[in-house]
């Protein structure tokens, strides 16, 4: 059952989550987001994981009318078929770059090598972008690696850290606090505010991790 909640007077959060992550729902989220962004009365949208935050200007737009519009649009939305690109991410696994590899291996009841193989075997999809500039929430993580986030976040996780947490995979676009577990390090530049397209990854992109040579 999809719920629409207030996010202040100028925002609405459409929450379509129903238990486990649903790929079809996610494609409908992207489609709804794109359709909304074509409208002049929408300031911006933030697609989350099986949810969508919609922002508008309550000075000009009636929130109740916007809620009705959003519900109608969502009901009619069909799954987005956006062209997907494949991005290959080279990773230096373990050692000083992957301080949680041993912990994750114990959690998954695998050897460190099997843990790396399981991480590389995934075909991940960029479900959402956010938290920090250029951070991607990747779905498609091997369920054996779905270790919960740390109880208290590390105050400093380095840019390029290849991380997993809460059933998702990700990579740190900048040095920042994080509660995710660190498996390795990539030297890809994930976000640069001065590039024509600042973020390296787009919604729907497929990501594959390989061992850095």
């Amino acid at each position, binding site marked *: 059952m999809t719920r629409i909640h*207030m996010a*202040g007077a100028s*925002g609405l959060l459409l929450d379509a989550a129903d238990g486990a992550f649903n790929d079809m729902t996610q494609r409908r989220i992207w489609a709804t987001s794109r359709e909304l962004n074509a409208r002049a009365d929408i300031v911006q949208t933030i697609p989350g994981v099986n949810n969508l935050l919609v922002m508008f200007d309550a000075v000009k737009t009636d929130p109740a009318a916007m809620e009705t519009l959003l519900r109608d649009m969502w009901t009619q939305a069909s799954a987005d078929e956006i062209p997907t690109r494949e991005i290959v991410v080279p990773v230096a696994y373990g050692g000083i770059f992957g301080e949680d590899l041993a912990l994750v291996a114990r959690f998954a009841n695998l050897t460190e090598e099997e843990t790396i193989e399981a991480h590389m075997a995934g075909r991940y999809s960029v479900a*959402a972008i956010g938290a920090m500039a250029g951070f991607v929430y990747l779905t498609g993580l091997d369920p054996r690696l779905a270790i919960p986030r740390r109880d208290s976040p590390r105050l400093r996780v380095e840019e390029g850290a290849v991380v997993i947490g*809460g059933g998702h995979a990700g990579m740190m676009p900048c040095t920042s606090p994080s509660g995710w577990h660190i498996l390795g390090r990539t030297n890809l530049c994930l976000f640069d*505010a001065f590039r024509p397209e*600042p973020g390296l990854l787009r919604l729907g992109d497929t990501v594959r991790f390989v061992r850095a040579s």
Partner: protein
Amino acid sequence: MIEILTGSSLNTIQDFGRRHAMAMGVAQGGAMDRLALGYGNLLLDNPLDTAGIEIVFFPFRVRFHAETSFAVTGADCPVTLDDLTLPRDWAITGRPGQTLSIRAPRQGARAYLTVRGGLDVPAVLGARSTDLKGGFGGLEGRALQKGDRLTCAPAASIRLPAAGYGLSRPCPLPSAEGTQVRVLPAAEHDIFTPESLKTFQTAAWTLTPSANRMGYRLEGQETLMLTRKLNLFSHGILPGTVQVPPAGQPIIQMMDANTCGGYPKIATVIEPDLRLLSQTGVGAPVHFREITRDDAVQAIRQDASDLRTLAAEISKLRTQLVF
């Protein structure tokens, strides 16, 4: 050109922030007290959202190396231009060699220095605001340091009275007794226990020292509890969102907040009251009051209309200035 004489890791260049980059994960950013920044710009006949300096670390001093019309607005600080004491929310012209000094606020927490034409720094992703986390915007993506020299964007000079000018009615600031903020229920509101929902509105929450442009952590005698454990997927969040992590003490997301989060949300502070929070000092009490969406919309529209009235008043006053 102005030269910064005092360094800190917190004083930054801000405008109204990035309204269209959150989908990339970029914080909205922008002045924590938009009304105060806007007020300064109106006094200088700049567009409302022109970039100025947000000052949270005092004393703050600058030296003018060229004739510069400027305004100091926001918190109630002792402000002097060389030996001349300036009233609150005041615009005046500084001459080369003069020093402007802004000392710790008597009331409020953030002061804004705006200059005629605005600060000439490049727009990045649609704004001149400093994004400290991302390391871009403002001056080289960082806080202002001692010795930094900032130029003003070219603009026709404006004539101001020798002693400057301002409105007799300055920007409202929260009272010492505490800050009242109006909120709307957010997504997980109804999953909190009835006692927690009552506590949320009746308790005096104290603003802790963990209060910065990303978020304001509050502390209360009681904790806010959910009726059941939730495991939320990551979702977009806006400035004003009141999150409740497992410890049960609320955190209000501010202008540089992460664009996505995963903690339960009890409420959202309405936009007109966010600036009051930003002017609240550490240790001061904060009170939440739930209102309806209709009342919130009315408050937001009233706020927009008040700003238009202010702009009209200042514009009228400018025609009556005596030189």
